[in-house]
């Protein structure tokens, strides 16, 4: 009997080369970190069940799920708005999977597993906004896109989910969920856009 290995492999496994990229000799203006192996569940209200879903979701997560383009941090998950009457549950460590969520949410909601359908990239540092301005048509000025703001939007003609996490060292952190099969392509576009600022690249198992 053959020995099967079921090692998960990120779509960026090959393209992501940890370390410095682009302009050298300056402090890197962009930090890119891929977060690997997470659970991502799409929760969609059944017809006429949005209020009920809101109720059970609040019971499940302890906070109200977003009903507008926001990302809400709970103790062990991030709830990210993804459209009217629907949101993502992003978590790690098997805390919120199809199985665990089904028990509480499957009455008023349909669930769809997207854990493998996306790649998660965290973008930060001083030039993050300048770089994102090359990819995103939305306004990321601090007044227009505050901590906790989220957007279902497009980059390079590809659908993405973008939200602003808590600041790190006083600088904004942007999180980006990208479709897995587009990830390598968009990654190269990000690197091209970021290169002039100097880039520090890494990956992580933690958020």
């Amino acid at each position, binding site marked *: 009997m053959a020995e099967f290995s079921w090692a998960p492999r990120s779509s960026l496994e090959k393209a992501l080369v940890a370390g410095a990229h682009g302009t050298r000799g300056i402090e890197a203006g962009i930090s890119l970190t891929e977060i690997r192996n997470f659970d991502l569940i799409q929760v969609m209200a059944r017809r006429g069940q949005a209020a009920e879903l809101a109720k059970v979701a609040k019971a499940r997560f302890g906070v109200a799920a977003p009903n507008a383009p926001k990302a809400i941090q709970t103790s062990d998950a991030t709830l990210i708005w993804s459209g*009217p009457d629907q949101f993502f549950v992003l978590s790690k460590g098997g805390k919120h999977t199809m199985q665990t969520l089904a028990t509480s949410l499957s009455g008023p909601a349909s669930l769809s597993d997207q854990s493998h359908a996306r790649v998660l990239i965290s973008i930060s540092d001083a030039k993050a906004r300048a770089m994102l301005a090359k990819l995103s048509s939305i306004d990321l000025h601090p007044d227009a896109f505050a901590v906790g703001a989220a957007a*279902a939007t497009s980059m390079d003609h590809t*659908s993405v989910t973008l939200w602003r996490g808590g600041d790190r060292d006083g600088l904004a952190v942007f999180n980006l969920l990208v479709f897995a099969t587009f990830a390598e392509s968009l990654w190269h576009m990000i690197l091209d856009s970021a290169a002039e600022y100097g880039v520090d690249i890494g990956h992580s198992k933690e958020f």
Partner: protein
Amino acid sequence: MRIVCPFCGERELGEFTYLGDAKPVRPEAGASEDEVFDYVYLRDNVAGETSEYWYHGGGCRTWLKVTRNTLTHEISSVEPAAGAGAAKVGA
């Protein structure tokens, strides 16, 4: 062009896909060929303010009903298109 998605806020044209006139309503089951022909093929093609379907496929994937002036491209209202093309049963 910028369209104010009622859910996402103002977004760039590239996030949306155009379908066409939102005035025709899909005839109910059992409608005649003439009625369906009219629905599928004939258009007012208004020069001025008209309502039309746009899909926010690059965003929240909602179908929208946009009121827009075809002479100036100015948009006066955007709302979800939910049910806009549904057959008017019993009407």
